């Protein structure tokens, strides 16, 4: 096989996949594009253990139950403390408070101890979800579909800082089933998901003329409507007005979730609450929507999903993520056209990206995001499992904590946002290299993982390194692993 065929295979794995593993170059070098298209037809199954994980609603209830128990323990502890204090005062009214017993005598301490006795189950659920997600990335032959999951999950991001318990289930429920389906379905699944409604404050939004709005003198929260227009669909500057935002926010009032508490079998699911909903027709982007209840919101989302501005916004973002910070306009136009022609068939859009010459003509100049990079170096060593605590700590250290972006915009995709973190990457590479140096031969990685497609400079640096560990650290830090 020629070296250019090999290097196209390496590029395919880095640019569209999770990075080369031992022998994956050999497996696809005959036809890298065909291999990517084939993965779209037969996407790898998500780890079966996911079926044992709680649904988002169940996870939500589990945390709510723990919170309630913890609260009760605090109350009991405080009561007991006050009782003890009273008795002590009655027994020896003049005695000064014993300082040595202060640890037990301090009501705050007792409350804290009580609270600590009921740990937050959300963290454990998060780590279990993280473990499977990372496993899927390690285990995929190429990982193109998994990269699409990562892309869309970031596009429709929520934050585990707000709703840790649901963050993994949200991705499984709202994103994963639709990455090769219709965008309209994903939009409805994501924007109708309780995690999103909580994250973007829609659960507290109510129409000023709704029953609840009148009774409680409360009203609208525009956050969800604005972010849906700006981030999820049309894109900023697409021509919508403040009136459109308000009307759309009115449309979306009542989209909330079933509260936890009353019923052990229910709570945390999506629910449309008509008492919160602003009555009457709304006009969004010049079109009147006179549907009743939840159908009104569904109708607006269905139109937004196939809007030309949405097509351009999503095509640009996809091409920027996969191909280049400044993507080739011809590629973006072609992907946007396919999006519109197919009413948002995401598999067809992905195929268009793979079959477009522009997607391959770009030199590997894109700086990988931290999680792509770190998954890439682990895969290169042939490792298929990791400790989720350690792995997510690494992601956080690198500035990309899993499901925890700092804003609804998600993690950025441009080099400027990430390049200053190169020092952190060096720390991680160095540490990881130390852990695997006993078993991983850097020259093996160059030959069997990178198909010998590395520059002479990298080869020299690896050859001259003072130790295997240093050789591996330099290799992991080289542009061959950092850029795609």
């Amino acid at each position: 096989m020629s070296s250019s065929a090999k290097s196209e295979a390496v590029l395919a794995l880095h640019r569209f996949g999770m990075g080369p593993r031992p022998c994956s170059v050999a497996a696809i070098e005959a036809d890298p594009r065909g291999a990517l298209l084939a993965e779209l037809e037969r996407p790898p199954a998500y780890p079966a253990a996911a079926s044992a994980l709680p649904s988002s609603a169940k996870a939500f209830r589990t945390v709510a139950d723990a919170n309630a128990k913890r609260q009760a323990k605090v109350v009991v502890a405080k009561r007991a403390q006050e009782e003890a204090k009273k008795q002590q005062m009655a027994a020896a009214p003049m005695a000064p408070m014993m300082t040595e017993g202060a640890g037990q005598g301090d009501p705050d301490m007792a409350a804290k101890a009580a609270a600590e006795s009921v740990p937050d189950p959300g963290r454990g659920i998060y780590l279990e979800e993280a473990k499977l997600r990372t496993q899927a990335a390690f285990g995929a032959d190429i990982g193109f579909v998994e990269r699409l999951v990562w892309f869309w999950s970031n596009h429709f991001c929520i934050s585990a800082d707000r709703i840790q318990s649901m963050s993994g289930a949200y991705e499984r429920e709202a994103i994963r089933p639709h990455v090769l389906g219709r965008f309209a379905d994903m939009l409805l699944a994501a924007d109708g998901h309780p995690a999103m409604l909580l994250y973007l404050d829609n659960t507290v939004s109510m129409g000023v003329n709704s029953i609840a709005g009148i009774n409680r003198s409360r009203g609208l929260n525009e956050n969800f409507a604005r972010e849906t227009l700006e981030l999820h669909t049309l894109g900023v500057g697409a021509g919508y007005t403040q009136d459109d935002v308000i009307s759309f926010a009115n449309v979306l009032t009542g989209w909330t979730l079933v509260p936890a508490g009353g019923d052990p079998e229910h709570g945390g699911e999506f629910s449309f609450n008509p008492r919160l909903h602003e009555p009457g027709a709304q006009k969004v982007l010049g079109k009147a929507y006179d549907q009743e209840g939840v159908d009104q919101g569904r109708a607006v989302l269905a139109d937004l999903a196939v809007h030309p501005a949405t097509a351009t916004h999503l095509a640009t973002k996809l091409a920027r993520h996969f191909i280049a910070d400044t993507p080739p306009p011809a590629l973006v136009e072609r992907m946007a056209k396919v999006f519109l022609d197919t009413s948002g068939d995401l598999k067809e859009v992905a195929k268009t990206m793979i079959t477009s010459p522009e997607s391959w003509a770009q030199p590997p100049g894109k700086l990988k995001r931290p999680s792509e990079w770190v998954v890439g170096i682990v895969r290169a060593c042939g490792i298929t499992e990791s400790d989720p605590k350690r792995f997510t700590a690494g992601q956080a250290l690198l500035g990309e904590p899993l499901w925890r972006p700092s804003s609804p915009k998600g993690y950025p995709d441009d080099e400027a946002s990430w390049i200053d973190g190169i020092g952190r990457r060096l720390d991680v590479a160095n540490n990881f290299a130390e852990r695997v140096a006993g078993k991983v031969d850097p020259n093996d990685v160059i030959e069997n993982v990178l198909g010998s497609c590395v520059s002479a400079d990298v080869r020299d640096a690896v050859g001259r390194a003072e130790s295997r560990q240093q050789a591996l650290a330099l290799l992991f830090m080289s542009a061959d692993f950092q850029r795609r």
Partner: protein
Amino acid sequence: MSCNRHLPTRREVLAGSGALFAWTQMPRLARAAGRDPRMLVIILRGALDGLGAVAPVGDPDWIGLRGDRALVLDGKTPALPLDSFFALNPAMPNLHRLYKAQQAAIVHAVATPYRERSHFDGQDVLESGVARPGAVDSGWLNRALAALESDGRVNLGGSRAIGVGSVMPLVVRGKAPVMSWVPQRLLPASDDTQARLLDLYQHTDPKLAVALQSRIRLAALGGTGNADTAMADGPSLALPGIERIRAYFAEAAGAAARFLARTDGPRVGALGFVGWDTHINEGAAVGQLYNLLGALDGALAAIETNMGEAWHETVVAVITEFGRTARINGTDGTDHGQGTVALLVGGALQGGRVIADWPGLKAAQLYEARDLKPTTDLRAVLKGLLRDHLRLDESVLASTVFPDSADVRPMAGLLG
């Protein structure tokens, strides 16, 4: 292309990342004899400059060789005198104190039988105990234990894994079971690794070079690059490079000692410290080598402290794959060489001596006119320790532990 090479399973990666090797049962004969010896091997990867660590200040050619980079007794930061001929790098006051207390010995102009200059191959020879690189996949310390076991003197069955961490050195890999432990701290990338990466970026990726350079500059100012947020239980990166290296060395070595000190703990351990490949700006009484030796000195102090009572039954051997050029190179550093030092410390030693068959420093006396000529085979030192401390049989040492070394006689008299 060959795709059938062995790649590690998760288990192997986990097991392979340990730093310690152990048996949990004491040698029966040793116990019967009232002894309970401990041995810790520290591998300095990258090739320690033996002349920069222990300087032959009494050699008339010394100053001529190193010029103002030579350690001297009357410098601004004077070297610490060991005897009438040798002096220790001032970064190592603990080692000096132990030496004065007869609890440290230094072997100079020592080297393995390896005479090429590749780090990987040199470390392979150093740790495998076999003169030819790449010959076996086990280390001499592991084979020594296996020999004790077959003798019925050690029960390895009780060995247990104790965690995951830094790389398990080849010296302890092999048939006998291994337990491992991970330092909590992230070992920071060394200045040397940063410099090499910067060089690579300058040739291949100017933008990454600029980004890395600004981080290095920031670190030099004592900054940390970025605030450490969202890492409540994560590794701390708050300290500048050398402080983190010092902390890492002390933690790793101190933990090893804590395990070795336990009555039911391991009796043999090994760990590796990287960063000794000082091609550029090596320094002497200040700078890179001084900082690393200082960190090593701190590690030795941590071992002594954590060993407690067991210190008197302890030997620590600090060894490296080869030495460095006798002269300073064109970038204020030294390149790969041959003869170097082995540092031995521990309460069980008959110390207070520099052991050297000194080859001299005149050009004609140097190996290939460039390196300190090795006059002592490191295997003789190690065989001496294994025979007199762990009580290994000489014939086993010559056949399985250090194969084909019958003509290398164990050094006598190292133990007290």
